[in-house]
């Protein structure tokens, strides 16, 4: 079933009608989307990721599943959680993965360009704008205000990820230890590496008991619907 779905997605023909949330989708795409239309979709979406990559997800969902009908919602949720799991900007990953699903590597390139170019243009434009009028006290105050807005956004992201991350006392301890190390100016790269090692080691020590609880967790997760799993992040 998996391979059939992926094959279908590769050809750009989404004829599955069965998404993970259980609802049936009747949308059929008859011809594969063109590179230009893929790029245009992502160009259009780029400005809606104001405030971080995860902010793009609702608009992306609307564009892909409702307007263009290129993907079913289950397929999209799966792609988005993959995008969140891979390193790199989530919005960039999502565009690459969706582009690939629609039209292979060419589609990925079209979507990637569509997602990245406007972002760079807007950030440089804002930067020049800031430089141009940067010395007025009002603008300075607005910047300080929005710095706090960004703090709130990041805190919110930490909460979202933390809810998925802190599964037991061990992970809570690990988080606090890492925070203490950061405050003690330990380079973050070492923490990431040791976090992976400690996590793998801890699971290895726990052995089979973890594997059982893991599979239970997974079942719970899938019954909640995959639509919510990427929402952990925003």
């Amino acid at each position, binding site marked *: 079933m*998996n*391979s059939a779905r992926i094959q279908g997605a590769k050809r750009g023909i989404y004829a599955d009608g069965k998404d993970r949330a259980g609802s049936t989708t009747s949308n059929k795409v008859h011809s594969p989307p063109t590179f230009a239309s893929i790029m245009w979709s992502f160009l259009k979406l780029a*400005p*809606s990721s*104001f*405030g*971080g*990559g995860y*902010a793009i997800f609702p608009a992306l969902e609307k564009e892909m599943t409702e307007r263009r009908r290129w993907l079913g919602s289950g397929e999209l949720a799966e792609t988005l959680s993959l995008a969140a799991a*891979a390193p*790199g*900007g*989530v*919005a960039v*990953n999502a565009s690459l*993965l969706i582009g*690939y699903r629609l039209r292979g590597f060419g589609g990925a390139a079209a979507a990637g360009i569509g997602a*990245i170019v406007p972002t*760079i243009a*807007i*950030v440089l434009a*804002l*930067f020049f704008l800031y430089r141009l009028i940067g010395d007025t006290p009002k603008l300075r*105050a*607005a*910047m*300080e*205000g*929005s*710095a*706090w*807005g*960004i*703090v*709130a*956004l*990041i*805190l919110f992201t*930490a909460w979202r*990820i*933390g809810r*998925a*991350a802190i*599964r037991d006392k061990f*992970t809570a301890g*690990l988080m606090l230890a*890492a*925070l203490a190390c*950061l*405050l003690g100016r330990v*380079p*973050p*790269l070492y*923490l*990431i590496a040791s976090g*992976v*090692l400690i*996590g793998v*080691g801890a699971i290895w020590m726990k052995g089979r008991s973890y*594997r059982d609880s893991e599979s239970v967790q997974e079942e719970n997760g899938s019954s909640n619907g995959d639509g919510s799993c990427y929402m952990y992040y925003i």
Partner: protein
Amino acid sequence: MWILFLFFLRLGFVSFGGGYALIPMIEREAVQQGWMTQDAFLNAVTVAGMSPGPIAVNLGTLIGYRTFGIGGAAAAVGGLVLPSIIMSAAMLLLIHRLRKQSWISRLFYGLQPIVTALILYAVYRLGIGSLDRGSWGGHLVFGLAIIGIGWVMLVRYRMPPVYLLLFSAIAGAAVLG
């Protein structure tokens, strides 16, 4: 410029969970290498956070641009995005095995708490940085108010983050200006 590219390339491989976890790393490197002062970095984070797109890519664009012009911006963005492309491609090839999620969830078990800590640390650094700019008392009250209001907007009403950014900018101009 080579150093810049390699640094962001290295970051690109470890930027799990979005770019926020990268902020402390970028700050450390940018200040140490003399690419930016602390204050300029804080401004860059604000501009990067306000702009669409991943905050790490935006930060990379700004730092690259400030240090080596357009070429620097391209180097930083290329460094950040290249690992994404490679890893996404690898994940696509592994998609069958990933379905079962057993090994990836093992990796994430230890990784996610670290990422959470990194993001919280970014909050701490940005908060301290903002407080240091003005009078502590007034900014602390303002900051906590924005965080509280932002929480209600994002969690309770599930509003798009752009409204929070607009609101905080206007509130800043009105109250702090």
